């Protein structure tokens, strides 16, 4: 009975999502819903025969799929009218609903049934299925012309950023509120080294490493003086760094550097004695535009591969696979790091700095390594971002970007790689896909159905002005942080150690 209830919930949520996107979206939503439901159901069941499990979850799968399809058909026939769009072609409705239904039922039963296998085999199957979904997604997206891949790439960029910040916050336990600064440094390194701004056109495959190295160097330079500070002071100082870096990039548009001794100190002293001097003033830079300020650097060189050619902004598929490769590489490196001597000393520092220092771990050096490693990954992300957008603007990298990355880590699970990946996908799809769709949906619903029925002009204006969820997206990020801290500080997919640490105080007070 409980299973059926969760099936109904999933079906309703999925169906409501199709309200926002319409058309073919029911196929992808159905498959994703099936994966989620199947994993959820499977985790609760005992390990027994896969076929038995499949039969036992089949009713749930059918119910959820049926609800999804009913809602999606309702959407296509009635809701479209309420938001002032033409009803969708009946063939799309028919095939879309059918495929969505099949996807939901198939994935739910399959994933639940996999739980019947031995644990190792189950993991292998799940990985294979995941790989299949990842590979198939952009092509399905292209076939159904939903254009989600371009947005998913942003989510994946934030996944890398989250993975990097996770090293600093999750493993070493240092709160870095200016992480977007390293992202900016990576992006601007790429921008400066492969754009007409300075006439340097380096190859992307080289620049991405330079960007990562540059971010690491800056992480080191910022960390060296500030890491001896205690946790909350460090947070404020990194916040300051995160605030200064975009301001610098915004304003380094007219840089003049003159050597002070020859230019004014010596002439000034000589002038004091009444003598006139005509000394040569050594000028290093004069009125140099380093970063193009608010205009931003654009265009930026794109990666090139044989067979595929130069990556284009019109075709997101090569970009998608590139970033998937970067993520796989990052996850591999981070896992090795985590289990290495260095990774274990990060965690020792996080648990108890004093005890770790007594065991012979140098806290400052270890923290510095965490800072530099974390910065490296945001350098990768920055380089990819710059090349993908082909234009970088300082306002992208301000404090709010750092907070979004922090949200990714907190929501997913501090110190857990899988958690951070899930967190990044959830937060950024909500931000990039869900909210814009919700905004369009609300706006057209208002103009076609709600506003004409309101007679009072003051109320009408107030409703119209406030029904824009995009304006308040940061409210959602703030709420995420506060609610997660209050309800589930260890995140959606917790790291066991962190969870134990976060709850130890509670247990102490209970006893």
């Amino acid at each position: 009975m409980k299973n059926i209830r969760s099936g109904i919930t999933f079906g309703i949520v999925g169906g409501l999502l199709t309200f926002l996107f319409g058309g073919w979206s029911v196929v992808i939503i159905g498959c994703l819903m099936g994966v989620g439901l199947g994993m959820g159901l499977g985790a609760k069941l005992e390990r027994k025969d896969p076929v038995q499990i499949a039969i036992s979850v089949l009713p749930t799968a059918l119910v959820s799929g049926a609800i999804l399809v009913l809602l999606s058909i309702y959407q296509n026939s009635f809701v479209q009218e309420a938001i002032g769009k033409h009803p969708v072609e009946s063939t799309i409705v028919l095939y879309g609903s059918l495929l969505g239904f099949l996807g939901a039922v198939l994935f739910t039963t399959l994933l639940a049934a996999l739980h019947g296998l031995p644990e190792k085999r189950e993991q292998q199957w799940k990985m294979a299925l995941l790989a299949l979904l990842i590979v198939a997604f952009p092509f399905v997206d292209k076939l159904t012309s939903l254009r989600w891949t371009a947005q998913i790439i942003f989510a994946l960029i934030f996944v890398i950023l989250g993975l990097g910040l996770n090293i600093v916050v999750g493993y070493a336990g240092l709160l870095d509120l200016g992480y977007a600064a390293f992202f900016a440094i990576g992006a601007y390194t790429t921008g400066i080294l492969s754009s007409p701004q300075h006439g340097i056109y380096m190859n992307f495959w080289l620049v991405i490493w330079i960007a990562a190295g540059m971010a690491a160097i800056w992480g080191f330079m910022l960390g060296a003086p500030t890491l001896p500070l205690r946790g909350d002071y460090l947070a404020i100082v990194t916040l300051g760094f995160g605030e200064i870096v975009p301001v610098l990039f915004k304003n380094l548009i007219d840089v003049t550097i003159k050597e002070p001794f020859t230019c004014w100190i010596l002439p000034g002293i000589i002038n004091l004695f009444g003598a006139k001097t005509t000394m040569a003033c050594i000028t290093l830079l004069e009125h140099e535009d380093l970063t193009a300020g608010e205009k931003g650097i654009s265009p930026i060189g794109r990666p090139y591969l044989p067979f595929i050619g130069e990556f284009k902004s019109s075709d997101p598929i090569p970009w998608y696979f590139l970033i998937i490769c970067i993520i796989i590489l990052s996850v591999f490196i981070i896992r090795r790091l985590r289990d290495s001597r260095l990774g274990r000393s990060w965690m020792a520092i996080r648990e108890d700095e004093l005890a770790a220092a007594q065991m012979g771990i140098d806290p400052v050096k270890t923290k510095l390594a965490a800072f530099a490693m974390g910065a490296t990954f945001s350098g990768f992300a920055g380089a990819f971002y710059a090349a993908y957008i082909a234009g970088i603007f300082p306002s992208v990298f301000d404090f709010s970007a750092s907070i979004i990355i922090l949200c990714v880590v907190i929501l997913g699970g501090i110190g857990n790689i899988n958690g951070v990946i899930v967190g990044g996908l959830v937060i950024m799809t909500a931000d990039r896909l869900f909210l814009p769709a919700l905004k369009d949906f609300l706006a057209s619903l208002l103009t076609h159905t709600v506003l004409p029925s309101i007679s009072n002009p003051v109320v009408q204006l107030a409703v119209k002005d406030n029904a824009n969820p995009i304006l308040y997206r940061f409210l959602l990020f703030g709420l995420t942080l506060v609610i997660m801290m209050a309800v589930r500080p260890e995140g959606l997919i917790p790291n066991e150690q962190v969870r134990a640490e976060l709850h130890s105080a509670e247990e102490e007070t209970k006893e």
Partner: protein
Amino acid sequence: METTRKKFNWRRFLIAALVLYIVLLIGPIVGLDIPVIYAAVKANPLQLVQFLIIGISNGAIIAIIALGYTMVYGIIELINFAHGDVYMIGVFTSLTVLSVTGTLESKDPVRIVFGLILALIVAVVFCAILNATIERLAYRRLRNAPRLAPLISAIGMSFIIENIGLMWAAQAWLVPSFGTTGGASQKVFPDMLGILFTSMGWNVNLLASSGIALRLTIKDVLVIVLAVILMTALYLFVQRTRLGKAMRATAQNRDAAKMLGIDIDWVITATFLIGGGLAGAAGLMAGLYNNTAWWFMGFRAGLQSFTAAVLGGIGNIAGGMLGGFLIGLLASFSDGYLNARWTNALVFATLVLILLFRPTGLLGEQTGQKA
């Protein structure tokens, strides 16, 4: 016998000289161009005094906000990120009260005075309750959690409050002067004090008749006097009253205070109430003095006043006041002689330097390195 005379530390001297040289070399990028500043001061020395006046007045407002940071930090060792945004809400609350009561359009001095007093009361009460609510919702249950948890919660709260301000600034039906430009633009906070004094037939500039080319307005005097009154009242409250004593006890040792029968929850709530009330008062004062209301103004104010609190020695009330005035001066000179866009960077640089070289601040006896 060997003399204990200290040898001259060449290494340290060289590092200091190198740092100084680098500052002189790349300083001009952020406007720290000494010949240019020298020329500007020489051309108009009175301007220096003018910036001093502006700096002290803004410093008074910063000091009042800094007290909220320093009190909260002193008692629960938490940087209340949302505090600067509570101050921003104070600006909007007072502006809304002034608008709703019709004070903005009125020219009648009596009505303006009553409107302002009402705005002060509402802003103080509202911000006090808001700040205490923030504590109740976001910090209380995390009191025993690891240090990072309440800090992250505080950042989230700051974002939430900023967005409430953003929404508020879009409600043109409530305050018509917000206009139709949406919530993100800077709003005008009408110069009610100027209107009040001109309607009473006074000249706003106290030095107008003296022939000196300076502006020392009644507003400056009023802001500074009000700030000094508030700070003295707070100082007396903390030093002389029973609740103040309980606060000091809780700040020193929470568990011991609890054992002595002090209601810790109430003491902490009271701290947040007082801090929020001060922020509300500072909001009205800043609105009247600087004549702007902006949803993001809490960030800069929060940064400056937090730096002020650290500069004076966090947890130390007198230090917070001193730090406030110093940071106000720094910001004013930076706005005047460098460029307003570098002020935040300069304040942050100051903060880093204090934290690195004197983490206890100027007057701090309570060390920042506790725990």
